[in-house]
């Protein structure tokens, strides 16, 4: 179990790093994009790039905002 935990921690840190916000934004945007394309038949190519820009801004804001 401990080995599994270490394995997961290593790859999480490797791919996601120290801020999960970007990852959550991208995954959410991909899910919504897929739904728009396959269910609503909307070619939402613009959604992921805009989400990436927003996610980057959100992550940077969190990293640079001081806590009182």
């Amino acid at each position: 179990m401990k080995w599994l935990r270490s394995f997961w921690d290593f790859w999480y840190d490797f791919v996601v790093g120290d801020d999960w916000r970007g990852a959550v934004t991208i995954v959410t945007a991909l899910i919504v994009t897929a739904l728009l394309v396959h269910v609503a038949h909307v070619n939402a190519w613009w959604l992921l790039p805009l989400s990436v820009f927003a996610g980057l801004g959100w992550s940077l804001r969190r990293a640079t905002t001081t806590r009182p």
Partner: protein
Amino acid sequence: MNELVLALTVFVACAVEAVEALTIVLAAGLTREWRSTFQGMAAALVVLAIVVAALGPALTLIPISALRLVIGALLAIFGLMWLRKAILRATGHKALHDEASAYLREVEAAKAAERRSRRGVNDWYAFTLAFKGVLLEGLEVVFIVLTFGINQGSIWIAVIGAAAAVIVIAGVGIAARAPLARVPENAMKFSVGIMLTSFGTFWGAEGAGVHWPGSDASLLGLIPAVALVALGYTALLRHGSAGLAAVGDPAAVGDPAAVGDPAAMGGPAAMGEPAVEPAQPSRKP
């Protein structure tokens, strides 16, 4: 055209990782013993080659749309992490990666470690230090080689780009016999972050089913767009830090030595700033 972009992106990304691996290898070799260091390097390279050889063909068996969705998402997340860190470093909110300091830390640790032989290796510490350093840095290269190579259908082009970077950095390292502290690491990481994020976004969205306007040509708009947004955020953060520092706000964030320091504040020159001494101990990215 895409193959050239693929090769160049992999080359630059690999060069960045090779510089960091070189620092560790030099610390082990110059402080301890070269034979054991090379054995550790070789063992790590064999493991990495096995990973590429095994995963590469295995991943091509997965349907391309599912593969692009997952790999695109992973690449976009990975690229965003690189981009975020590069922006924070360029604006003084995170210490620049200082190869000279990293080298000195490794040297001190290597000098203090006991010397013992094990499993046919004369200096086990030098072996494990080199093995872990090359393996960990190499895993990032393998990740980029596989993701880029598979999505472009050109793993060999990606491997060639990576191999070329290793050869170039190793050659320069051998000639210099010192860590490459003057390499503009942060500028390179910023550029690679833009490419990884752009390609990850492109492939991820394709995997989700979208049709990009102009197909592959849309990358010619997407890459500059990502670059502009990243540069915009960099400018915003620099402006914000400068404003806070100017009014003497004690809550001004970031590296106190970097805020207000034109050399570390940002702009294209500062992203390539070599060997800036951090005010706080530099952390491995």
